């Protein structure tokens, strides 16, 4: 069974190759069969692997294909490793990936670039699987850059519009800044520990580096740089909202469920290193907390449905970073899983709305769609409920509760971090139910057309089910005390040494979180559902409008980077377009031309003048010879 491991990423890669070689000549049916089929097979194979893996008592499986680089004592194989962590990631990627592929086969039905779309999507799934299954950081980096490339290609999928191209380039360049930090981190690790094999690396780091010393801190900080870029956290978060220029299934798969959580995976994977660098872990915590609040406030002000979801994704990944920072590794992965389900669901539901109303993205031009689009409405509502962590019945509740409990229980800073998380937990239902009430209730502004086929309904239904039930694999002590998920990950991500606290405290924390979520829904209903007069008046005031503009543009980070980096770079490029160094050589050439002109004037044609110059020259030569 272990030998089959490499086939999981190979299947979508094969799909990519077939579609690439077909070059758009394959019919839509064949394209869909290859594109969807390859991910479906990968998902089935993963399921079989998972069954075997659990049955065999969670062995760590390694499958090395060939020596990729082997030079001067440094080796990096093309090799895969399966453990509980990568199994969870692989399951989510292949299943959510398969559902989104299925959805896309109908969603993209009328697009010219049907073949190209599935070609890129398959490449993405293959890269993402390589990322999570790689047994060494260099191969992980290959997957890491591969998903970045696919993200670029798919954001700019509709390439005729230059704005999409700009968004795509922005995404690639901003994440590449993080990737370069990651790469330098790899250099540091490889030169000091002599390997990039993850298991060996963690072992050697543990034994060679004392906690808190400079090297692990630098290495962890550099890896964090990579994670921050890929996962759109402060300060490299600006690309994600613009990335919504891509087709909606792309946003669902890449910019919500999988790629953007690669940073979370990287940190969880190298958590040993982060344990050795407490200061970096503190930074990680603060980045997570700050991003989750910043993004949540920004989401309140957006009126593009997909941008609301984009900021929400940033915010939820902020929760995961917070969890990683406080050492609640399992909670982060748990939230990754539930988030993948409910956020993919939200995006797909949003896409289902948008495709029926002439690609309208502005929520204030929608409205009253509940009756017209019941499938989209119920899916979106379930996704929103799960995102808002409505208590007991949604998956998001259990994972978010685990994070909040981890934050509360993380030493002296705990209550503050918990407070930040709780504020986010209040904002989340407000912004998402704002969207629910504005889009699906109230007056109707548009008339939907068309209808949904099975390939859209089935993924929505399955994801809805998962968004509700996926949380039941791990429940807090007060609610049945299920620990299946934690136990699964325990060998890979050891539980924190918890400060013993009364069970009642944990229950109280949970109840407060549950009440906060309900309060948030209530506020959203009060403002947008019931359309109360008081908040409308408040929003009309000048400071409120200014604040709204500020949040709308994502706290002005774009403007800041534009002034600090983009414009100086463009300016530098513009003034030096002709290459200043070349001007120097041009000067030499001009000088020799000048001398040429001066000297050629001595050729006067007057014989006697030549004779005179000869005489003078000879005299000078003799004089120099005699006196010098």
């Amino acid at each position, binding site marked *: 069974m272990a030998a089959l491991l490499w086939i999981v990423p190979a299947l979508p890669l094969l799909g990519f190759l077939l579609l690439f070689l077909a070059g758009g000549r394959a019919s839509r049916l064949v394209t869909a069969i290859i594109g969807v089929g390859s991910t479906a097979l990968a998902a089935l194979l993963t399921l079989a692997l998972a069954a075997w893996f659990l049955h065999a008592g969670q062995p760590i499986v390694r499958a090395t294909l060939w020596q990729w680089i082997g030079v001067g004592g440094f080796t990096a194989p093309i090799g895969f490793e399966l453990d509980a962590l990568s199994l969870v990631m692989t399951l989510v990627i292949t299943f959510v990936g398969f559902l989104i592929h299925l959805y896309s086969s109908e969603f993209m039905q009328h697009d010219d670039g049907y073949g190209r779309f599935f070609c890129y999507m398959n490449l993405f799934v293959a890269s993402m699987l390589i990322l999570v299954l790689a047994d060494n950081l260099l191969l992980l980096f290959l997957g890491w850059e591969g998903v970045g490339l696919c993200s670029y290609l798919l954001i700019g999928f509709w390439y005729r519009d230059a704005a999409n191209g700009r968004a795509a380039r922005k995404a690639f360049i901003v994440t590449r800044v993080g990737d370069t930090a990651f790469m330098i981190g790899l250099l540091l690790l490889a030169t000091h520990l002599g390997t990039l094999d993850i298991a060996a690396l963690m072992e050697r780091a543990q034994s060679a580096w004392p906690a808190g010393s400079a090297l692990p801190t630098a290495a962890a900080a550099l890896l964090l740089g990579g994670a921050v870029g890929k996962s759109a956290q402060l300060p490299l978060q600006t690309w994600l909202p613009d990335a919504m220029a891509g087709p909606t299934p792309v946003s669902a798969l890449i910019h919500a469920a999988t790629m953007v959580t690669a940073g979370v995976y990287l940190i969880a994977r190298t958590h040993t290193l982060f344990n050795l660098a407490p200061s970096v872990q503190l930074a990680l915590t603060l980045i997570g907390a700050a991003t989750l609040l910043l993004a949540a406030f920004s989401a309140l002000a957006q009126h593009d449905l997909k941008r609301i979801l984009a900021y929400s994704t940033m915010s939820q990944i902020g929760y995961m970073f917070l969890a990683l920072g406080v050492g609640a590794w399992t909670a982060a992965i748990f939230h990754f899983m539930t988030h993948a389900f409910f956020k993919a669901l939200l995006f797909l539901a949003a896409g289902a709305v948008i495709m029926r109303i002439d690609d309208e993205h502005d929520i204030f031009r929608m409205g009253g769609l509940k009756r017209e689009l019941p499938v989209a409405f119920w899916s979106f509502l379930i996704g929103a409920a799960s995102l808002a962590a409505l208590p007991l019945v949604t998956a998001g509740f259990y994972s978010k509760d685990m994070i909040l409990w981890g934050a509360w229980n993380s030493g002296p800073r705990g209550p503050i971090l918990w407070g930040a998380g709780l504020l986010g937990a209040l904002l989340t239902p407000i912004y998402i139910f704002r969207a629910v009430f504005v889009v699906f209730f109230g007056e109707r502004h548009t008339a939907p057309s068309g209808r949904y086929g099975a390939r859209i309904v089935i993924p929505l239904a399955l994801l809805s089910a998962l968004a509700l039930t996926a949380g039941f694999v791990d429940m807090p002590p007060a609610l049945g005390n299920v620990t299946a998920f934690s136990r699964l990950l325990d060998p890979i991500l050891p539980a924190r040494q918890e400060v013993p606290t009364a069970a009642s405290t944990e229950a109280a924390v949970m109840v407060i979180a549950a009440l906060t979520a309900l309060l948030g829904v209530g506020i959203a209903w009060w403002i947008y559902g019931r359309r109360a007069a008081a908040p409308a008046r408040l929003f009309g005031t000048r400071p409120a409008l200014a604040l709204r503009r500020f949040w709308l543009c994502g706290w002005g980070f774009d403007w800041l980077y534009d002034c600090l980096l983009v414009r100086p770079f463009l300016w530098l490029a513009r003034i030096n377009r002709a290459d200043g160094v070349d001007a120097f050589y041009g000067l030499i050439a001009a000088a020799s031309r000048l001398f040429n002109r001066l000297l050629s004037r001595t050729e*006067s*044609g*007057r*014989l*006697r003048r030549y004779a005179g110059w000869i*005489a003078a020259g000879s005299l000078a030569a003799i004089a120099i010879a005699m006196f010098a």
Partner: protein
Amino acid sequence: MEGSVPLAHAWVLAIVLFGLGLAGLLARRNLVFMLMSVEIMLNAAGLAFITAGARWGQADGQIMFILILTLAAAEVSVGLALILQLFYRSASVDADSARSLRD
């Protein structure tokens, strides 16, 4: 050597002759006279060689003079031929009128 011309006199004569030739070369515009001036300069150089040869008692000076003699003969014949050609073409032996050759 008794009764011979002092060395310095021969030097001075050579210098004077050379100066005269140079002055003639620069001052005259008639190509024939310029050619003659060059001859005078060559002779001045020859005289200097003879004198030096006598001073050091070596034959090299006279060898050089013979070389200069043949050189001068060749030079005069080529020079006169050129001047003749120029005269046929421009009906003048003025050196400055040969400027048109430059272009």
